[in-house]
């Protein structure tokens, strides 16, 4: 439960950061907003138990890449005046798009639930013919989500 709450908080942080990164007119602010999103994502990685990746996310992404971005923005002296304003009606069309996207996603999920064998039934039986090695995928071939993405 704590994990879900943490996920919600960090997720919100990442979403807000991402949203600001793509909408703010000032490039410096946009980059800093992206840093915020990266930090949020790093938090989620920590929550999911991938501490090493989370650390890398903070060090490499937030620390190195985005600072390079910031450096370039300042090097070429990109000011808010150089950035055209966002198209009008973005909120309206954005909401319509989000609604449509959710409908699509729900429809997708429903279809998946109805047509695919339930996760329990399709529980992968251990394939003994192929040894499990690093980088091989066989263990998940029967996974419904895998089947959904790669229907072969």
């Amino acid at each position, binding site marked *: 439960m704590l994990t879900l709450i943490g*996920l919600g908080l960090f997720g919100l942080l990442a*979403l807000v950061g991402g949203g600001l990164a*793509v909408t703010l007119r000032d490039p410096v602010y946009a980059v800093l907003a992206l840093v915020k999103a990266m930090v949020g*994502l790093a938090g989620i990685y920590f929550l999911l138990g*991938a501490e090493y990746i989370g650390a890398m996310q903070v060090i*490499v992404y937030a620390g190195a*890449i985005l600072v390079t*971005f910031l450096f370039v923005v300042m090097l*070429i002296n990109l000011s808010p005046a150089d950035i055209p304003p966002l198209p009008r009606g973005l909120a309206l069309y954005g909401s319509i798009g989000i609604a449509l996207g959710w409908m699509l996603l729900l429809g997708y999920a429903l279809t998946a639930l109805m047509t695919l064998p339930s996760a329990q039934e399709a529980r992968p039986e251990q394939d003994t013919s192929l040894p499990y090695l690093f980088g091989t995928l066989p263990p998940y071939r029967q996974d419904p989500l895998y089947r959904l993405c790669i229907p072969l």
Partner: protein
Amino acid sequence: MKVELLYAVLTLAGGIFSLGLLGLLLRRNLLLSFLAIELLLNAANLNFIAFSRYHNDPTGAMFVLFGICLAAVEAVIGLALTVRIFRLHEDLGLAKLAQLRW
């Protein structure tokens, strides 16, 4: 790791991916388009981590590690090109760069 948590993380990744796509569509500036691409990459990374945890398999985490390296390299080269283009054109508007050769 429960499947509900996986779905929640996947939905979050989808949201971030959508934001990145939105940015790519909306931004008329080369540098800011790059920013949006970083968002796309991170959404993919998040997916990898989620499945890696769900399946208890480190392969996904390895993918993410490579992805971050890739992102760093891409950022360096892309930004270097961006600076060159800016020197050449004094402008980073995508509309101005909409030609196949110059």
